[in-house]
């Protein structure tokens, strides 16, 4: 092994990756660090830091536990008829779970993004800026949710009908 090769392998075993890896990350931290000093220079350091940390954990420690719990609840839905003793024996039926999961997920997505309009939290600023009220948005969201579940239910009915046909 050449001297350079030995050096590189000693570096790799001590650091865990090539030197370019450290160089790239150092550049990243330099740019981000400089931007952070400008944030402080603009006098918004504290609020910015709190919101940034909140953004780091928001999906993994807030959203994910919520939607994964909701999904567990939805997945237990098909077991309901069995528990109630009304399960029909035999015959393949399309799974109902995704026909609930998908419209529910999409509806929640719209709510998470547009809650300031739907729940009217932005009403005061919105009225001042736009000159109108946020009141129609709740109805619109409910209507879109209804349509999503309606289309999903319709698709389920079609799939079930197709599965029941004798030639299938």
């Amino acid at each position: 092994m050449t001297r350079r090769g030995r050096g590189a392998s000693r570096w790799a075993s001590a650091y865990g990756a090539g030197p370019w890896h450290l160089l790239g990350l150092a550049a990243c931290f330099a740019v981000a660090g400089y931007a952070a000093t400008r944030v402080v220079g603009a006098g918004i350091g504290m609020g910015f830091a709190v919101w940034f940390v909140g953004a780091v954990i928001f999906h993994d420690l807030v959203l994910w536990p919520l939607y994964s719990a909701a999904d567990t609840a939805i997945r237990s839905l098909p077991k309901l008829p069995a528990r109630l003793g009304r399960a029909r024996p035999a015959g393949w039926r399309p799974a109902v779970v995704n026909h609930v999961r998908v419209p529910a997920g999409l509806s929640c997505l719209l709510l998470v993004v547009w809650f300031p309009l739907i729940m009217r939290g932005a009403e005061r600023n919105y009225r001042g800026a736009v000159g109108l009220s946020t009141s129609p948005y709740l109805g619109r969201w409910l209507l879109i949710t209804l349509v999503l579940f309606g289309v999903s239910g319709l698709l389920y009915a079609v799939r079930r009908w197709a599965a029941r046909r004798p030639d299938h």
Partner: protein
Amino acid sequence: MRAGNGPPGPFRPGFWRSPLRGPWLTSVFGLVLLVGLVIVAVTGLLSYAAYEPRLPGNDMTPGKGLLGFYLFDWPTHPAWLYRVTQGTHVVLGLTLVPVLLAKLWSVIPKLFEWPPARSIAQAVDRASLVLLVGGAGFQFATGILNIQLFYVFPFSFYPAHLYGAWIFLAALAVHVAVRLPRAIRAVRSRDLRRELRTRLADTRPEPPDPNGLVPADPAPPTMSRRGVLAFVGGGSVLMFGLSAGQTLDGPLRRTALLAPHGREYGTGPNDFQVNKTAASLGVTAAEAGDGWRLAVVGASRIHLSRADLLAMPLHTYALPIACVEGWSTEQVWTGVRLADLARLAGLPPGAAAVTARSLQRVGYFGQASLSTGQVADPRSLLALRVNGADLSLDHGFPARIIVPNAPGVHNTKWVRELEFRREGR
């Protein structure tokens, strides 16, 4: 300590059981985000340039240092450019929300990896992921709340969103540099067309990967891989379809059911999107009434009534108003050329920049500066009428600026003073 022998719960590999998590799925989301976020970032930085930060009063952020850099004068041609770039920035950002959430879902086991780092390189890498995930969340959250005028954050949106972008982009660049080859290999490991034909019954986990995305103990799938892609893609189509209408005029505008500025006002000449009513900024009909005079300042200082302005040569152009919040609308404006007013102030257009000051007492953008190029464009007007009628008070009566391709808030309403300055190009 042996891998997988860490604290209980999510730190144990057996905790994560989704049979769909794996490098292929993560890489598909990652590459879609890469393309989309580059467009969002470029259009976002262009928007900073569009605000002409070098002109007096346009970017008052203290201590901006190198981040207040100035690259070029924002052009007035084509008039629809900002409408397209900023509409893209906002609508594409909204469209990417489901993809970002799916990407975060797909890699969540990595957050709980145990031990937290196996090498210095990995520790440094994970520190950069804090900037990446935090930066993405921060940018999306502040942008989404700002377009809904929900100002719950304890800082001014403009510097926070701009500086947050630099932190996010620094982390994104290094993330792409480190992961892109691996992501491309992972995407090539499966045939997309075949995945799109694979039903739930035939869906199997990806083969075990060294990075631990594929679960050690996968549960039976409840959704096919194509199902997940359709779910996420459907979310994007929904986000796009319910907001893109606010960048369009005509009947399609009504499709923006969940967007702040897709509203109908009526059918009159002044019935189009308002941004900041007169009442909310403390502008009264009385001060905008007969006693109003426009101060035109330059080599001399003169005062003009609305009748004086209407007696000057009037010009009519169809020009868009395009807001930083992503919405836009084109209307037909009639008014006096800024170039003619510069001449009146004793300055030749082409060498005159202007600062327009409004009657508004509160809020941002009570004044905005325009470049020599913007003043010289013959379509740049001090508008007095819109769609053949006098401006309404909410649209800036008695007079407002309209400049082709300028960000909406630079089209100052209720103008009380135009201060022209000589400036070399």
